[in-house]
């Protein structure tokens, strides 16, 4: 036991000789963890959302790009709102509100981003939400939100969000790409709630309308025309877009976007890991003389391995894991995947370096 303590103590003392390498490893791993941690969620959110949008695409969806004419006099025409509410009820449309929610209520949802989805086919636009088919009013907290509950008085409902969404919950917008729900409060409302919203919210819902044209009871040409005219009177000129036509182009954009993030990150990762392994081998090589001498004068390979393992734990593993742990503590969900990648690689390098050092000792002695 005393010998064990002595070997551990000496393993710790060895680290002092390698201060610069230890700092280098910490900086390298911090850099790689930060870089991947920042890039990966962006890429995965968009990739997951786009992948999941395939379901929406199967419904032959039509969405709208809007042009706002500020020179024209606007009215608060309710025909488009009524048509949308009707289509939402029929299950031939989905819509969401992502901006301008409860503008008069500054502290609404503790000032978190709020996302309201409507329509029984909301699961087509919103993913990862339990029971998406139900239109029963309810609310969820994003996985990154720390609150245990938030009261949400909206459209005549007094909702309380208590349940957290899964970490991978995200949404796909035909207008943009995908986004994670991690920092959002998500509210599911029945179509009738739309009629009780304020004008800014209604306008946002109209803009985010998606009609599902493959449904047997999809919106008629007459209603669609009335919808567009009503929106025109509200100051918005809508141009219908077919998502099935646009999606391949969006998919290409996402792939290009993903490559622009992933390739440099991967290159950095490979570079850093080779550097890390090489540093590990250098550390062991620099201590090989001492290990050989100790073996000559009575150390067993067992006692030397305690020394080497202690040394490598302190000079390789902890410097590699510490920045990752700090980053994960600072922004949990972002650094989980890079943290796992770094942990796996660190474990591999640690085992390789330990085995290499033991084999080198045996070989160099004999």
């Amino acid at each position, binding site marked *: 036991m*005393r*010998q064990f303590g*002595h070997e551990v103590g000496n393993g710790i003392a060895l680290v002092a*000789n390698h201060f610069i390498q230890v700092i280098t490893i910490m900086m390298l791993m911090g850099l790689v963890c930060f870089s991947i941690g920042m890039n990966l969620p962006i890429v995965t959110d968009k990739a997951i959302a786009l992948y999941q949008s395939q379901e929406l695409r199967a419904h032959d969806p039509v969405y709208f790009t809007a042009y706002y004419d500020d020179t024209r006099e606007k009215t608060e025409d309710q025909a488009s709102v009524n048509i949308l509410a009707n289509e939402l009820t029929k299950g031939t449309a989905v819509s969401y509100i992502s901006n301008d929610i409860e503008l008069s209520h500054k502290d609404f949802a503790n000032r978190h981003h709020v996302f309201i989805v409507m329509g029984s086919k909301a699961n087509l636009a919103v993913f990862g939400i339990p029971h998406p088919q139900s239109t029963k009013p309810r609310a969820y907290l994003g996985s990154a939100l720390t609150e245990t509950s938030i009261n949400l008085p909206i459209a005549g409902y007094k909702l309380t969000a208590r349940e957290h969404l899964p970490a991978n919950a995200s949404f796909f917008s035909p207008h943009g790409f995908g986004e994670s729900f991690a920092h959002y409060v998500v509210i599911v409302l029945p179509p009738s709630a739309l009629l009780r919203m304020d004008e800014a919210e209604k306008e946002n819902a109209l803009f985010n309308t998606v009609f599902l044209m493959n449904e047997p009871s999809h919106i008629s040409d007459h209603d669609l025309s009335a919808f567009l005219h009503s929106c025109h009177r509200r100051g918005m000129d809508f141009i219908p877009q077919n998502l099935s036509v646009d999606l391949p182009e969006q998919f290409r954009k996402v792939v290009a976007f993903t490559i622009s993030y992933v390739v440099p990150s991967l290159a950095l990762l490979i570079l850093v890991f080779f550097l890390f392994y090489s540093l590990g081998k250098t550390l062991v090589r620099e201590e090989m*003389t*001492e290990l*050989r*001498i*100790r*073996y*000559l*004068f*009575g*150390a*067993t*390979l*067992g*006692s030397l391995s305690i020394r080497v393992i202690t040394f490598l734990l302190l000079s390789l593993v902890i410097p590699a894991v510490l920045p990752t742990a700090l980053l994960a503590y600072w922004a949990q969900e972002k650094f989980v995947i890079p943290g796992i990648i770094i942990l796996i690689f660190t474990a591999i390098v640690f085992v390789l370096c330990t085995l290499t050092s033991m084999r080198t000792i045996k070989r160099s*002695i*004999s």
Partner: protein
Amino acid sequence: MTIHTTDSTLATDSTTVVNYDTVSATANPTQSPASPEEGNTMIQPLLELKRITHRYHQGDSVITALDTVNLELLPHEIVCIMGPSGGGKTTLLNICGFLLQPDHGKVVVNGKVPDQSSSRRARLRNQVFGYIRQDYAVIDHDKVWQNVAIPLEYRKKPIYGHKAKALCSQALAKVNLAGKENVRVSQLSGGQKQRVAIARCLVNDPSIILADEPTAALDHENAQEIMTLLRDWAHDPTQRHGLILATHDPRIIPYCDRIFSLQDGTLTQESATHLQA
């Protein structure tokens, strides 16, 4: 295959150098002093190699490093193994020192064949043997006393701290490095580093020192100093010490009691006069 071995009947005394070969002990200025055990009919060798064979595999070919080698090291004796590089000298020393297990044959220490468990071998390396290497094998970034104290850490009852430092000081004094305890090894000359390596051997009071090219990297003056130190240690009449040297440095010959040549795996006892010629 010719096998030249030490005749056990001649191994009655370490001072009977003349018996081994044609070299007269009195003709050798570095002759061993009379052993306190002189007159004993049976002197137990410190170390015996019995029919040691060891082979290396190099690709498809097999190289015989040692071929049925026999050797005895008696107390107060300095045995020198000479031969070309790659001739198996280091392999022989490694087998002597339980750093390498031979393919065949056995190594006897003080009349007993130790078991080959790793902990037992480690204990032997610590208690019985001291090692000196050509490359000094010292830890440059450590202090002198920390280098010397290493064997003390692996004793059955390890010695650390002040007690270890005191023992190191005694060992350093024996190699004329008194007062250098706290100096970094990197600040020492080559000769001093080798003396640190010798002090490290001495600190644990081993009975056998195995020195592999101990003077190869040293100038004449330092080589003489080192060999004088080792000879005095081996010939100390109050102790049962023995020294095996592996070298191709002819400067060492005058300090040795018996000289062997190792070539193609075969150990042959040589005449010192022949070697000097």
